[in-house]
């Protein structure tokens, strides 16, 4: 696989725009991110996102006032879904902002220096990859209290290893390229070679993987809160909403199904975006 240089921006984005799935994915992600940022402004009942009760209004089906209906204590579902998205995206952001740079640096070091550096880092990676993130979160929750913060730490602590593996293999490939040899003979420092010569060649792979990861992390976060290990009520969270609403299936289906659909929607968006980015970067040499 040869990846297109990021500099041919107009050509790459042209390719991207010709791919309907990619465009849809990008649109979904942008929509969700904007909705999450401007949640208090665009939701009809922002106060319902926290603790609020209105027992007269409970279990209302979707209507014009309550687009997604109301839940078992009378809160507007639509508002809570949007605020829940906020939590999910924040979780993804925090996890990835820790995992991606850490994993990338580890991968660069292991790939370039080889020897003991490689052995230590990659064996550590192997160990971490053998632990399922959910199990890790369970372990953390049993030791510390269940909270969003702890869930994030648990996931991030394992997630960086995926990126290490990816960057390691790319670095290994690039290390034998002539331009790296040229940089070495020209007297460039190791830091320069790692971060200015090798890293730019990894950016496209990182972009694709991070995009796909976001979808995964959101799903894991939702699973954790579904199990009660993540964020605690009354904060709105998609996973908790699915769990709480599950009791009332199938009569009050909107309380569980619509938050689940929202999870699906945002994860799908990131997946399509990631695939679209990958297709955009994958080029065959046209002679």
């Amino acid at each position, binding site marked *: 696989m040869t990846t297109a*240089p*990021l*500099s*041919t921006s107009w050509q790459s984005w042209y390719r991207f725009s010709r791919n309907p799935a990619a465009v849809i994915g990008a649109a979904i992600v942008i929509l969700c991110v904007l909705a999450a940022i401007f949640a208090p402004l665009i939701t009809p009942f922002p106060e319902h996102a926290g603790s609020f009760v209105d027992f007269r209004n409970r279990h209302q089906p979707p209507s014009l006032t309550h687009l997604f209906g109301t839940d078992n204590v009378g809160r507007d579902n639509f508002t809570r879904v949007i605020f829940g998205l906020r939590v999910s995206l924040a979780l993804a952001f925090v996890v990835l902002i820790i995992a991606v740079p850490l994993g990338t640096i580890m991968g660069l070091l292991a790939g370039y220096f080889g020897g003991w550096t490689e052995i230590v880092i990659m064996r550590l990676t192997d160990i971490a990859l053998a632990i399922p993130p959910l199990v890790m979160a369970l372990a953390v929750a049993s030791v510390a209290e269940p909270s969003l913060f702890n869930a994030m730490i648990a996931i991030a602590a394992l997630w960086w290893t995926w990126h290490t593996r990816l960057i390691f293999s790319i670095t290994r490939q690039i290390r034998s*390229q*002539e*331009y790296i*040899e*040229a*940089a*070495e*003979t*020209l*007297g*460039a*420092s190791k830091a*320069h070679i790692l971060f*200015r*010569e090798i890293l*730019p*060649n990894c*950016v496209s792979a990182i972009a694709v993987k991070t995009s796909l990861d976001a979808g995964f992390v959101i799903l894991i976060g939702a699973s954790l809160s579904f199990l009660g290990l993540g964020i605690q009520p009354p904060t709105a969270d998609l996973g908790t909403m699915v769990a709480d609403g599950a009791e009332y299936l199938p009569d009050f289906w909107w309380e569980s199904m619509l938050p689940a659909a929202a999870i699906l929607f945002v994860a799908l968006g990131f997946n399509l975006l990631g695939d679209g980015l990958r297709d955009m970067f994958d080029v065959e040499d046209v002679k």
Partner: protein
Amino acid sequence: MTAALEIVSLIKTFAVKSAFGRQTGTVRAVDDVSFKVAPGEVYGLAGESGSGKSTIARMVMGLTAPDAGDIRIDGRSILGQADRAQVQMVWQNPGASLNPRRTVGQSIRVPLVAHGKPLGRVAELLDMVQLPRGFADRYPHELSGGQKQRVAIARALAVEPRLLVLDEPTSALDVSVQAKVIALLEELGATLGLTYLFISHDLSLMRNFAQRVGILYRGRVVETGPTAQVFETPQHDYTRLLLASVPVISAEEEAMRPKIPLINGELPTAEDLMALRDKERNQA
């Protein structure tokens, strides 16, 4: 006068691995090679694949360490301490020796930063290789092969080296572009007082660019001398075979080529020729 570059009894052996990675033997890539290059001279190393010419280039650059022998720049040994300020290299494929994710300017700045030279030299260097200064902001894939190679030359000259190792610098270029790049190298050599170690398999090019030449076969220098002399009156059978194999475009060139007797209707391979030679010598 001290030689700009002196190679003394250089030996480099590589392990031969089977398909599964087990070592099955060794091969002498460079087998007791010695030669001297005078300052300002263009010395050519001619040979085919497996001759050891690229290995010698890499040892001069300090990318590989020799097993035995010495390499001296201006009389000073550079073993174990490659002199990257005095010796630089231009590789064969500019598409591979320039980082595709870095602009021309960024690539040229690498040696300037590494050796503490002023960054303003980028513009000066581009002028030297006859490229417009605006190219500093372009990426390699936006340039033609010849332009990329000029960038590689500019980058190599950034640290003001005395010796340039040119490893097949024009083999990946069209012949019309090749002529211009060689002309540029000649001009720069004269203006900057550079010494060149020119590695190539293209004998016609060697004839026109190198003043002295060493013919390499399987790690040994089988013949050496002034280019014109070696080409017009080749002594060694391998040199004769090489000259006979070059496709030429004029009757005069064809007339100067040695005639090699055919074996089974075709030109002998180098191995066959050398085996034949050894057999004849043993019989004599």
